[in-house]
């Protein structure tokens, strides 16, 4: 089954159109990346899929179920997690409370909350050390880990990840990408949008290139690494 099928998706901010007939597919278990320059529409694309944007046209099907009409709160119940741009954490709550809130409102996630939390801590031992600390006082890397952790607590089968490398030192970026790979290997389908093209092409199996709100290319991630156009535009080789 396909984890995600996006067909002719257009999205708008007011009257301004930002996505133009975007279509792409993700097989269950895949790790797909969508790369594109700043302003290409990557964040808008993920927000349209997860229901944060409702002003859109086209269809979005996840695990065979049509979700483009649903609210964000319903879409997370369809096993789609979103690690959003800007992390969107609860800054006056502790790390632990942020994690728990990921599972609290979803019965299927709540039942396994203790297990998932242990898993998140095994991925990011740093979060366990900071368990009692307020999210607002964490460093950029820790916030990113927490945002991923909170999304995992919702028990997603498909995880949408928005620029996890933004503002992180290279070493931390590596940790975060490694964690995403591990999560994928445990069976979670991943859609990663990134400006950090080199890292994401290395982590993903397949890639789409988004330019000015349109998909202009799709290929195996490894072949894009050797694509002269991509190298010139995004890899600065």
């Amino acid at each position, binding site marked *: 089954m396909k984890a995600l099928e996006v067909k002719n998706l257009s999205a708008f901010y007011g009257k301004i159109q930002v996505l133009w007939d975007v279509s792409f597919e993700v097989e269950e278990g895949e790790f797909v990346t969508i790369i594109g320059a700043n302003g290409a529409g990557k964040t808008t694309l993920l927000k349209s899929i*997860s*229901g*944060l944007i409702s002003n859109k046209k086209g269809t979005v099907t996840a695990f065979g179920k049509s979700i483009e009409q649903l*609210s*964000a*709160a319903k879409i*997370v*119940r369809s096993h789609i*997690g*979103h690690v*959003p741009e*800007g*992390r*969107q*954490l*609860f*800054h*006056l*709550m502790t790390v632990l*409370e942020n994690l728990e*809130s*990921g599972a*609290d*409102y*979803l019965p299927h996630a709540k039942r396994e909350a203790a297990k998932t939390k242990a898993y998140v801590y095994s991925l990011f031992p740093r979060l366990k050390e900071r368990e009692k600390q307020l999210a607002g006082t964490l460093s950029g890397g820790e916030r990113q880990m927490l945002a991923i952790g*909170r*999304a995992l*607590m*919702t028990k997603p089968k498909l995880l949408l990840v928005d620029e996890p490398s933004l503002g992180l030192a290279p070493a931390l970026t590596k940790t975060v990408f490694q964690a995403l790979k591990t999560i994928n290997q445990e069976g979670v389908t991943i859609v990663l949008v990134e400006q950090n093209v080199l890292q994401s092409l290395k982590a993903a199996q397949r890639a789409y290139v988004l330019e000015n709100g349109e998909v202009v290319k799709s290929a195996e991630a490894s072949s894009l690494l050797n694509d002269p156009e991509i190298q010139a535009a995004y890899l600065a080789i």
Partner: protein
Amino acid sequence: MDLTLLLQGILSGILASGLYALVSVGLALAIGVIGIVNFAHGEFFMVGAFLAYQLFISFGFDPVLSLFFVAPALFILGALIYRSSIQFVLKAPELNQMLLTFGIGIILQNLALVIWGGDPRSISNVPYRSIGYQVGGVSIGLVPLASFLISIFIVAGLYFVLLKTPLGRAMRAVAQNRTGASLVGLEVNRIYLLAFALSAALAGLGGVMIAVIQSPTPVVGFAFTLKAFAIVVLAGLGNIRGILGASLLVALAESLVATLVPDGDSLRNAVFFAIIFVVLIVRSRRQA
């Protein structure tokens, strides 16, 4: 200085702070969770007062009993107003929101004037209204004491809900980050509805007490809106935990000026706003 008078002023201030906290905490909840500045808050308070009055006149309900009717009634009124108007202006400019809530307040006030007229009404002939205790020259009325205790009990209950229950955590989550809240499965609009309705219910409960403590008219609401605003600003906009302390501070100042300053009773409202001016100026200087 007359020590007894001073003690009396302090005691009256403490007792008044409970009701102030109860009314202000509802306003802070609406501001903190929904981000809506509700100028009709005092009118919810007024409606609570007149419902209690009507329940007393029509059915002989004791005000304490009325608390259990007024709270759900105001909860429903708040929910209806949220659904029919507030939810549509959440993304509108703040000025538009204020104008809307101000208008709602005027409508409620005028409806009350039509129904109950402009004369002061009060639940005067409950037997315990005149009971008071003398402690070393200082007098404590049973009604102010009971209203203080009930108010503090309700405010403590709200704190418990906010800090210790899933619903409370959901409200805090929505208050701190709407996007994050919807991504963990919360229907943000539903939480807003609950917060607004709860806010109205809290104001209504305060109204029941004012109907016994004073003899309110349908225009009593606006003064309480302003007082609640003053307290909310003092506590820090949307800071619910700070409400108790801020209420105590302004109630004490008000009461001390009223008892110790000659003709101080007419300065009550001025004291409130003098405090607010000082706080706002000091705060903005600190930030600058």
